[in-house]
């Protein structure tokens, strides 16, 4: 069962992630009075990209390695997540530090790819992405660390259970901070600054095409799913039904709901400038530190 749990995790995320993008596109289209593509469109997009020729525009290994590294580390990150609140076979090797590390690694792979491409738009995108990572990773880390502090354990199932302990004030503060940061975590408007199509033409991904780009797209989709899952499987895990199947169903429903919210917010905001976003992120960091402080002092 402990081995199967890993596979269930992987299959859950791999299958769900493109569908959620479809949901997002459909809802965005609805807000914009459009028909929108069918829900399964992202799967077709990915398949089409994967079948295309891999154009490598920079002659260095970092450029080729970056998408693989990004995808692999993201897969590893979702593989070690506890399923149904239980630890799996990897849980002994991986604690919450590993999770944070893997997520950061995935983000940095995008940076490496962008910088090694030598494209000026890529460099601008990379510098924006870098600022975003520096400002946002602490918020994520604080969220999980708060759980670890509460439960006094570094293991993932324990820490995530700690995240969901609703009896304290810090839980609600952290939940608010997380919800405020969610739009930035999933890099949708107003926080899709590193990609900003009209300014820097998808920034970090500008030189990527075909399967390499498909991997980046897939990584981004799984990343978005993960951040939504953290709310469903972390903050709201006290709702968890006893049956594993029902649990997955509930999580899916919650995640879809969240994506609906993300799409609506995304469709009703213009993009911020990076300097405006940084101020917002800074506020989030301060609030999340405050939440951890409260958590440490038992509130």
């Amino acid at each position: 069962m402990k081995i199967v749990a890993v596979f269930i995790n992987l299959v859950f995320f791999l299958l769900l992630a493109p569908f959620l993008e479809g949901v997002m596109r459909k809802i965005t289209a609805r807000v914009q009075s459009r028909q929108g593509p069918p829900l399964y469109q992202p799967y077709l997009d990915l398949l089409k990209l994967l079948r295309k020729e891999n154009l490598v525009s920079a002659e260095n290994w970092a450029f080729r390695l970056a998408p693989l590294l990004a995808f692999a580390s993201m897969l590893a990150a979702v593989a070690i997540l506890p399923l149904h609140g239980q630890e799996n076979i990897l849980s002994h090797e991986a604690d919450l530090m590993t999770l944070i590390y893997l997520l950061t690694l995935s983000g940095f792979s995008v940076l490496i790819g962008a910088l090694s491409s030598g494209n000026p738009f890529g460099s601008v995108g990379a510098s924006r992405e870098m600022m975003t990572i520096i400002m946002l990773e602490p918020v994520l880390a604080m969220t999980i660390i708060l759980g670890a502090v509460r439960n006094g354990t570094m293991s993932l199932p324990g820490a995530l259970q700690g995240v969901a302990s609703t009896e304290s004030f810090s839980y609600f503060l952290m939940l608010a901070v997380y919800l405020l940061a969610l739009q930035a975590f999933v890099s949708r408007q107003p926080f899709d600054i590193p990609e900003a199509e009209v300014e820097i033409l998808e920034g970090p991904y500008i030189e990527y095409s075909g399967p390499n780009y498909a991997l980046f797209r897939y990584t981004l989709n799984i990343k978005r799913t993960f951040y939504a899952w953290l709310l469903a499987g972390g903050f709201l895990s006290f709702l968890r039904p006893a049956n594993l199947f029902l649990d997955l169903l509930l999580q899916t429903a919650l995640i879809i709901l969240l994506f609906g919210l993300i799409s609506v917010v995304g469709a009703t905001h213009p993009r911020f400038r990076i300097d405006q976003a940084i101020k917002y992120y800074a506020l989030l960091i301060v609030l999340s530190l405050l939440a951890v402080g409260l958590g440490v002092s038992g509130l």
Partner: protein
Amino acid sequence: MWLWNKIKQLAISWKSGVVTLRYPFEPRPAPAGFRGQPIWDHTKCIGCAGCANHCPARTIFLRDICQEIRILLYDSSRCTYCGRCADLCPEKAITMGDHYELATENRPDITQTIELFMMTCQRCGRCYDLEIKNSLDKLHTLGYRYDSLEVGKVSRQNTAEFSPDLLEKTKTYERPKQLEK
């Protein structure tokens, strides 16, 4: 305030509903009076060349191939669908159709040719003289990109006033080498 604005924005979308059409799957007919592809009625055409003389895009070509037969050729690949030909036709032989899906790989699909049998003048025996430079001949010699609708390609020719040594200069002109860094 912020939330109220967002709700107002969402309300607009809610009220208007989905407005995009499933276009290629569902046809969208053009309204009455639409200027689509011009269609020649060969029974009405008298071969006066009014359309050919006034076509701003010069897409209509007229030529007598023998004493009795006059050819009208319309190549829509450059047509701007202004409808000037239909306006000016004295016999109302041209109607602007409502067909607008004209993209094709095959040029004859959008080309119209009419063979007109002309009467000969009882007095002089001919109606139209090919040798004399008249405005119809000019249509052939002047023009735009592919000047000759007859051969359907660019004919690189120059107006009479252009001095030949200037053209020579363009041929032998030494191009600047790549710019130094």
